[in-house]
């Protein structure tokens, strides 16, 4: 579940998180999704995804706005949000790209723990942290289902395979820095 415990220092790039309200098109998409489900609450996860995709975090004002659109209490939205370590607070938003390195069994048997350490060293951040330029957030992942290509990682929601091969991780990190 939550990958972060205890108070975290405010990330340097947190200042860039915009104030509300949610952009009109995000609000419209949320309202549009209401037709798919017999309850408004079911739009909670899709709404959180739309918000984080845009803002790289889910600020408290967005929680209130989503709650308002879904006829929920902000506490109900927050209850769901806080269950998934996936969503980021405004004090610690994701960088432009999220690099997740899988550490579960199939990847670990092929060196995932070292790669995670290596990536942290290369990026100069701890796992969970974001580079000072706000380009890359490094996270660990539990099994991402790319075990035949272990060790593997994800950039946002796309898989990258065999990242232990020479230069693959360097090249990927280089590309992410430019993104």
């Amino acid at each position, binding site marked *: 579940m939550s990958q972060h415990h205890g108070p975290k220092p405010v990330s340097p790039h947190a200042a860039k998180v915009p104030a509300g309200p949610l952009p009109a098109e995000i609000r419209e998409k949320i309202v549009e999704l209401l037709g798919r489900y017999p309850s408004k609450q079911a739009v909670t996860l899709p709404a959180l995804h739309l918000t984080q995709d845009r803002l790289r975090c889910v600020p408290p004002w967005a929680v209130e706005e989503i709650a308002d659109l879904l006829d929920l209490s902000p506490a109900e939205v927050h209850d769901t949000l806080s269950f998934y370590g996936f969503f980021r607070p405004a004090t610690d938003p994701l960088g432009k790209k999220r690099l997740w390195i899988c550490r579960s069994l*199939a990847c670990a048997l092929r060196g995932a723990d070292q790669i995670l350490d290596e990536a942290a060293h290369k990026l100069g951040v701890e796992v969970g942290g974001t580079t000072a330029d706000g380009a890359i957030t490094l996270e660990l992942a539990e099994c991402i289902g790319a*075990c035949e290509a272990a060790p593997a990682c994800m950039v946002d929601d796309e898989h990258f395979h065999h990242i232990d091969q020479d230069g693959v991780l360097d090249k990927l990190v280089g590309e992410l820095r430019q993104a």
Partner: protein
Amino acid sequence: MAAFEPVLLQRLNKPECKTLEGYRADGGYRTLTRALKEMSPDQVTTVVKDAGLRGRGGAGFPTGLKWTFLPKGNSGPVYLCVNCDESEPCTFNNRYLIECDPHQVLEGIILASYAIRARVAYFYVRYEYGTGTRTMQRAIDELYAAGLLGKNILGTDFSLDVFVHRGAAAYICGEETGLIESLEGRRAWPRIKPPFPAIEGAFRKPTIVNNPETLANVVHIVERGGEWFKSLGVPPDPKNPRDAGSYGSKLYCISGHVNRPGIVELPMGVTLRELLEVHGGGVWKGRKAKGAIPGGNSMGICTEPEFDIPLDFNGPGKVGCLGLGTAAVTVFDETTSIVDVLHNICRFFAHESCGQCTPCREGTAWMLKIVERIKRGQGRLEDLSILEEVADKIGIMPGTTICGLADGAGWPVKTAIRKYRDEFKAYLREGTPKGGTSSGMRLSMAAGH
């Protein structure tokens, strides 16, 4: 014996079939067309039930039987939830299905929805499958444009909507009632059963939750009939009246220390040894295997001498594993420390326990702490019996938790200690495994728990 001709993976190397046009040109949606025009929903259910298809998600419950549990004469909504959360470590068979042959899965979804009289199907897919999610969405869009989804499909009075719903990286969403809670917009805390979803599921309505591989099988069963399906796999054990058999083919995932990791479709019942030696290319670096997990982390561990078990619904149980699980085999070689393997597995479950039931939340955390201290060289001999005691007391089977996550967290602990006790003892005495470790699995700064 002639090589088995893949059924579910027949379009693995036909990327043109990812489009509706290509899939149709390859014979796709013919079965659906015939079923909608010539069969009643109950006839579809009967075919699936008589074929003996069992769920491919892990529990192996008979699919057609599950469908018959829906309340009779129900006039309200029924939902199909497709469980593509696939988060069991070392498992990726459904990723192949949705990335390589999305229309096969969708044909199964539409057929199943017709059989259970669902008008809405939710395709719940783990966030980590971004590519597969987009492939499925494109295929769904094509179906709406072609009148194969939406109102009055193929001019019949059957209507169906399919909506993609993305998860947010939580293992527990693969538990069917956790999935339903997550779909409804709440924390994915599994529900107490009964009522089972067929009676009261999504949005408190009758709901069937099926795995994509299960649904893909439905297409071929309706097309070729139950007798064909039963010609594949393993019939029930005559000595066990409760055995429903292991019919059909299965997608086996192979990973870890093997020369050719990958996916292969075979009739149920291949031995773990054949899977490793023939299909996985043997153990890497010319080494020997020390052991394997036969069906995802939660099924427990089997030793190399146990590799002759058939990977059907009964085989892994014969060597004390929990079951076939997802049929995802991960092999570790002789140089790997069993402590490393168990530490990795315990870390996973401690991270993924949803926290609802105290025995699981605390038990998985304590098992990790104890294995971690053993790994660090600070273990005590009594730690082994403490671990076994904790593992025995958490789960549905001892009756202390709501879902099976804790059983699956305890099983690797119990099987590892029972089967590799000497190695654990040696590690506790000497602080290092015999022969050292090359797996490099270590206490990482990135442990993150």
